[in-house]
């Protein structure tokens, strides 16, 4: 067991090695790189399973190592294997391996697939590091590295401007949140003196440090724990696509579809939820059942609004992947709500089930896109039920799990647990109502999408010639579909094994209220399905007019939803414009500052030269030049004796000698 904790770093190292080796392999060996990546992650999955089993048998363990020293402080990092990280570990490696396998088929024709697998492996390494780290600093480092991998993969087709733009947008938007994360991290560091989560009683999530933080207030009257938690939550908002930093996630769909499945549905975007679950002891500090900690209240409201916003926006999208992207945003909001109202286990269970069925949906969408030669607009698809039966069946499983169709699908149970805890939330009932509404809307837009894509007859040349992909594409779909169903065995409120595993302390809920919420949840789902089925039953006829049935029914609302509530336009008109203006003003200021300095310098130089010229001409030249002229005149006179005749010179010399001799004689005699 001890060895396991010490050697946990091997798990992220495996994909990292694959990425490193792949970087230096020549381009034509891209199949080798792909094989290496799959092998590395599959091995990691086996190790992860072993680690998971060991956690199931016995408790958490961690090990810390010194990283560097500054002052008298030794900054340490470490690995942790507890139920939270073990569950994430297993999910990421299993889902990741399936998506990697899917990618080998999906990307087979791309000559750059070597690069693709390098980036994917880099991502996997960073993501595994993120969940295994026992230090907020190490977590932040891996957090940024998954952001880098996300940037690289969104912009994988860099020569397409939308992809490149989306990559930049994703990096910059999440960085806004990350700066909050960084400040929170530093603040926590300076207050508790450590950012190790667990360190034999001295870690920042252990009672000693928490009681040191509890009860202290910051300058604005905010509790210290709340302030730090909210800053960390900024990071989660950015990464997990919560309002108002969600704008990057739909654009991120410009990346290859396996990337959307792995990074922007199953794992990375859930990192924000994971972070809040990891920091839960700090976030929940100072709260009670009646009066939750302020940070949790903020999280719950953010989650509720995001959930509803995402679901409503998804209703009016026409790109198969963007519908799923907004659905992801919505579900992440659900997770946040669950986390804030019911504790980490409730949010995490939905995270885990969502990872499977959303990866399934994205891979299904990938299969559709692959089969339809890149067509992504659902208005041009249709009738794929017969042409791609395997994809249809598995997609339907994912759709029902996401919609929360009762009993057999894991999504139903995990969503139900969230609604359950929402219904007990003391501060407000509104999030609960929003949650139920979102559940209904979710079922509605998934029905719409299913009808658009699979029902009726084909509406475009690409979908007319659609074909099912190779087993490499369909087998992962089948496994994920199986997992989406099988997970319900451990998530029902009657046997909430996963919830207990993630949070042994959580109390089993009362059965009476369980039934009430279960029925309500099922009703909401049924309402959504029914509404969708009725509204879109004659889709082929409706589309003849070129308008969506819903658009004819509520045109204004539909336009607003289709335009994503105009968030991007709003940011472009405010933030982006302001930054541009600030840059322009600064550049102008800098220019004028430069020219002021230059003018000052040239003014000083000309003033100096004027002064020196005046002094020269008026004072120095007047006397000096005159003196020179006099000397020159005298010289002219004297030089007449020098006519260049050597003998005359000689004569003068002799005369001089004689005169000298005479003088000497005269002196000597007298």
């Amino acid at each position, binding site marked *: 067991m001890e060895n396991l904790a010490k050697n946990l770093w091997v798990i992220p190292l495996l994909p990292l090695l694959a990425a490193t080796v792949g970087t230096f392999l020549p381009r034509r060996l891209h199949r080798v790189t792909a094989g290496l990546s799959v092998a590395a992650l599959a091995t990691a999955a086996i190790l992860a399973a072993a680690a998971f089993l060991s956690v199931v048998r016995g408790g958490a363990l961690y090990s810390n190592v010194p990283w560097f020293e500054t002052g008298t402080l030794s900054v340490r990092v470490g690995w942790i294997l507890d139920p939270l990280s073990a569950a994430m570990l297993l999910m990421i490696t299993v889902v990741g391996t399936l998506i990697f396998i899917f990618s080998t088929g999906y990307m087979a024709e791309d000559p750059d697939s070597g690069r693709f697998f390098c980036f994917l492996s880099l991502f996997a390494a960073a993501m595994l590091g993120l969940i295994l780290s026992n230090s907020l600093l190490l977590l932040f480092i891996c957090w940024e590295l998954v952001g880098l991998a996300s940037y690289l993969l969104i912009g994988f087709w860099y020569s397409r401007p939308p992809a490149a733009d989306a990559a930049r947008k994703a990096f910059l938007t999440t960085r806004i949140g990350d700066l909050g994360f960084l400040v929170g991290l530093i603040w926590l560091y300076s207050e508790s003196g450590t950012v190790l989560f667990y360190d034999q009683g001295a870690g920042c999530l252990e009672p000693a440090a928490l009681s040191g933080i509890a009860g202290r207030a910051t300058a604005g009257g905010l509790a210290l724990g709340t302030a730090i938690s909210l800053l960390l939550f900024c990071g989660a908002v950015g990464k997990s696509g919560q309002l108002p930093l969600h704008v990057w996630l739909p654009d991120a769909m410009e990346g290859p579809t396996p990337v959307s499945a792995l990074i922007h549905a199953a794992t990375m975007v859930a990192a924000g939820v994971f972070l809040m679950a990891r920091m839960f002891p700090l976030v929940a500090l100072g709260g009670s059942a009646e009066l939750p900690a302020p940070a949790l209240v903020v999280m719950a409201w953010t989650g509720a609004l995001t959930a509803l916003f995402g679901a409503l926006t998804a209703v009016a999208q026409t790109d198969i992947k963007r519908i799923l992207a907004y659905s992801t945003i919505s579900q992440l909001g659900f997770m946040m709500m669950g986390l804030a109202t019911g504790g980490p286990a409730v949010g995490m269970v939905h995270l885990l089930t969502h990872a499977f069925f959303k990866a399934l949906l994205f891979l299904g969408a990938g299969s559709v896109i692959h089969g339809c030669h890149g067509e992504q607009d659902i208005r041009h698809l249709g009738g794929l039920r017969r042409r791609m039966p395997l994809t249809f069946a598995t997609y339907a499983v994912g759709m029902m799990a996401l919609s929360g169709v009762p009993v057999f699908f894991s999504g139903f149970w995990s969503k139900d647990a969230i609604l359950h805890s929402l219904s007990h939330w003391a501060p407000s009932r509104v999030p609960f109502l929003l949650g139920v509404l979102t559940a209904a809307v979710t079922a509605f837009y998934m029905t719409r999408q299913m009808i658009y894509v699979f029902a009726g007859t084909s509406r475009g040349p690409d979908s007319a010639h659609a074909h099912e992909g190779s087993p490499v594409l369909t087998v992962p779909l089948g496994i994920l579909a199986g997992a989406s169903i099988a997970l319900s065995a451990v998530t029902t409120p009657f046997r909430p094994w996963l919830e207990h595993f993630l949070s042994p302390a959580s109390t089993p809920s009362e059965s009476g209220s369980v039934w009430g919420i279960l029925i309500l949840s099922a009703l909401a789902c049924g309402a959504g399905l029914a509404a969708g089925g009725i509204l879109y039953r004659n889709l082929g006829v409706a589309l003849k007019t070129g308008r969506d049935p819903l658009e004819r029914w509520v045109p204004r609302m539909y336009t607003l939803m289709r335009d994503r509530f105009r968030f991007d336009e709003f940011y472009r008109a405010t933030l982006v414009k302001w930054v541009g203006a600030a840059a322009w003003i600064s550049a102008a200021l800098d220019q004028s500052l430069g020219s002021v300095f230059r003018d000052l310098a040239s003014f000083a130089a000309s003033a100096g030269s004027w002064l020196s010229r005046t002094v020269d001409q008026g004072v120095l030249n007047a006397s000096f030049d005159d003196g020179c002229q006099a000397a020159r005149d005298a010289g002219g006179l*004297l*030089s*007449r*004796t*020098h*006519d*260049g*005749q*050597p*003998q005359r*010179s*000689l*004569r003068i010399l*002799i005369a001089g000698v004689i005169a000298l001799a005479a003088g000497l004689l005269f002196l000597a005699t007298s």
Partner: protein
Amino acid sequence: MSAATLHLLLAAAMFCIGLAGALCRRNAILVLIGIELMLNAANLNFLTFWKYGPQPQPLDGPVFVLFSVAIAAAEAAVGLALIIAIHRRYRTTQLEEISRLRG
């Protein structure tokens, strides 16, 4: 009249002839000869004062003279070289035609 006086008179005569030649001759080579004559007059004076001086040390005078003759030879070489150079440039050895040193 002692031998010393005679020697000195001879030297004085040589000096005067040399001086006159150096001052009056137009030809540069003859001027040079005049200068050599003056130099040798000085050498003669050296030997005279050594030979008839109060304490004639062995070889004092001749060493000086030998030295002086050597220098005179070198000087004559340089002088002749100069004259040749001048002749090459101005195609003449007449001194009044060479007045580049005019101030």
